[in-house]
């Protein structure tokens, strides 16, 4: 991007016309990643990008820096990576000494440990990676907001669609990893919530190379599931899900972690101005934008939007604004995004996609809520045991 030709003029002009907002501010943020050993995957097609999540934060940093340029707000974004197996807390302390805003890409336990640091008590942390229910429930933390969609939101989005389609008889295959089981549990809960029936279940336990044997193994496994409308797959670590499609005994569609997938974000989105965000991301990072990228992007954009509107870099004031009804962020999903005041979860639509197209965007039409239709997805206020946000 060419340098502004009249930077001083911009700033001066901004000072005249939005004087309340134009105080010079420094807003340092840090993207903090705790590495994890990922279980091996069979497929070589879809490796996890090294800059997953970080790329989204960097893109948003560029976006808000442009806005800041007009207002005299200086944003910075540093990046910290903790090797798998290392203790993340010393690095987190150091990061918090430099910046009160952390965008976290870390497993749930690490998130909680960082949020519980004394140094983090006045900071504002964003979870851009961990979908676990507990973090939005009894284990919530007042200084931890969540921009990645939870397992529950994703499961509810899928169930709303299935209800609307009247595909009500379900079967489920759950993988062996903890993440698979957690998503499987969310699918069960959500099916019960929307009155759908999971008739039969199977646990995935094969350890063969499915690329060679899927056509033999999967029909046998799915034959035992009886009759159903759609087969749900909980395979959050890409262990086997992609080999279920078209290998089932009955000619039935697949949804969940593979097939029709509820996600925070996907390269298949192009409506609501998303094509422009995708274009900027692709140009900068030469790949599709994924859910974790979007979650980190959303976190940084939320910081920027709050600073722009409030004219302060004070974390407590920004947190209060982010959780208020006044906060509305354009997230390229067709509706204003905000945060739930009871557990800090981003309130956002959930796209249901397959790799090449959007199928629908939940909340699905007809699922109503007294506050916002988006609150039909995930833990609603009366259901959440989160107490840290109570005052």
């Amino acid at each position, binding site marked *: *991007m060419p340098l502004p030709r009249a930077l001083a*003029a*911009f700033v001066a002009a901004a000072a*005249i016309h*939005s004087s309340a907002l134009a105080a010079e501010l420094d807003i340092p943020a840090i993207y903090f990643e705790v590495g994890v050993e990922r279980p091996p995957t069979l497929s070589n097609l879809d490796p996890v990008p090294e800059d997953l999540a970080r790329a989204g934060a960097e893109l948003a940093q560029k976006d808000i820096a442009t*806005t800041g340029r007009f207002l005299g707000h200086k944003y910075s974004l540093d990046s910290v990576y903790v090797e798998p197996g290392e203790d993340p807390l010393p690095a987190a302390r150091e990061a918090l000494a430099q910046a009160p805003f952390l965008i976290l890409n870390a497993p749930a336990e690490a998130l909680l440990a960082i949020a519980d640091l004394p140094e983090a008590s006045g900071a504002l942390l964003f979870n851009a990676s961990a979908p676990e229910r507990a973090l939005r429930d009894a284990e919530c933390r007042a200084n931890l907001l969540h921009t990645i969609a939870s397992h529950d939101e994703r499961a509810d989005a899928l169930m709303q669609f299935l209800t609307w389609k009247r595909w009500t008889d379900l079967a489920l295959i759950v993988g062996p990893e903890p993440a698979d089981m957690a998503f499987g549990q969310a699918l069960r809960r959500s099916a019960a919530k929307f009155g759908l029936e999971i008739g039969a279940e199977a646990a995935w336990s094969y350890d063969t190379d499915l690329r060679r044997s899927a056509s033999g193994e999967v029909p046998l496994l799915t034959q035992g599931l009886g009759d159903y409308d759609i087969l749900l797959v909980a395979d959050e670590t890409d262990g086997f899900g992609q080999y279920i499609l078209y290998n089932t005994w009955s000619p039935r569609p697949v949804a969940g972690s593979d097939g029709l997938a509820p996600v925070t974000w996907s390269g298949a989105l192009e409506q609501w101005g998303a094509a*422009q965000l995708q274009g900027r991301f692709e140009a900068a990072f030469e790949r599709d934008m994924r859910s974790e990228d979007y979650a980190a992007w959303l976190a940084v954009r939320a910081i920027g939007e709050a600073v722009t509107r409030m004219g302060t870099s004070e974390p407590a004031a920004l947190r209060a604004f982010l959780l208020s009804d006044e906060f509305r962020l*354009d997230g390229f999903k*067709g509706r204003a995004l905000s945060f739930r005041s009871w557990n800090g979860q981003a309130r956002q639509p959930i796209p249901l996609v397959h790799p090449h197209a959007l199928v629908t965007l939940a909340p699905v039409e007809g699922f109503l809520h007294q506050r916002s239709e988006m609150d039909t997805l995930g833990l609603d206020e009366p259901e959440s045991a989160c107490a840290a946000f109570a005052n």
Partner: protein
Amino acid sequence: MRRPAARLAALALACALPSSAMSAGEIWVTNEKDDTVSVIDAATLEVTRTIPVGKRPRGIIFSKDYSRVYICASDSDTVQVLDAATGEILHDLPSGEDPEQFALHPDDRHLYIANEDDALATVVDVETRQVVAQIDVGIEPEGMAVSHDGRYAIVTSETTNMAHWIDTSAQSIVANTLVDSRPRHAEFTADDSQLWVSSEIGGTVTVFNTADKSEVGKVRFEMPGVHPDKIQPVGFKFSPDGKTAFVALGPANHVAAVNTETLEVEEYILVGRRVWHLAFSADGTQLFSTNGVSGDVTVIDVASREPLKSIKVGRFPWGAATRP
């Protein structure tokens, strides 16, 4: 949709009179996903011509004498110039990448173009076909307006959430004013005393005093049974008498009639799905709305504020402009 018989009869009568056909003129509509322009005869309310243009046509505007029409062909990265009489493409203008909306300076020469992907506003001289200036603006510039006295050009940037005020004599920004989320469209009132800017995700229209660029007020919308998230103001137009602003509300599928004095909404008019932009008939009696998802144009009777008819056009109609 209600269609009182009496009004239909009146309409039919009006259509029979050749003089009114002259004064109603044509409405040109860009079809974003068909790469065409549909020309509607505002007297007969029929599509009389469909003109093939560049890829993803969006913004559309006529030269002062209506002999030429400029079209933002966004995915062709160009502004096309057409002969309005024949529909023939005369030439392209260097527009910068991904032009979405633009505005013509009252000098009839300088076209201010928003380059959505480049965070730039490009100024093109339509006679020499040269780029006169490029101005850095916020991320995803979209809405463009030039004041009637030619002094200011306005660019709104969707991600930066600002209206940037460009002094057209210096071609540089003199002020940046914050608006609500995702500003899409800007217009000056006829006397240039106010600038209005719609915010799609913010769900508001912000009104500025041109003289000191201060905020005068905000138009807010509320419809029973429609969640505020779905009320997304995009295109808008002032009535010829200046008393009413008609605001297209996107996925709320309505056009709001706003009192320009009180900034209160007086009425919501049902139109097709995903309404984008508006154009008045040349005589000001009818308002045409482009409805993206339903692929049609709704004709609204301005006096009674009733929808009269839906006209099928191409896929995803977006921009609209009037030719007398």
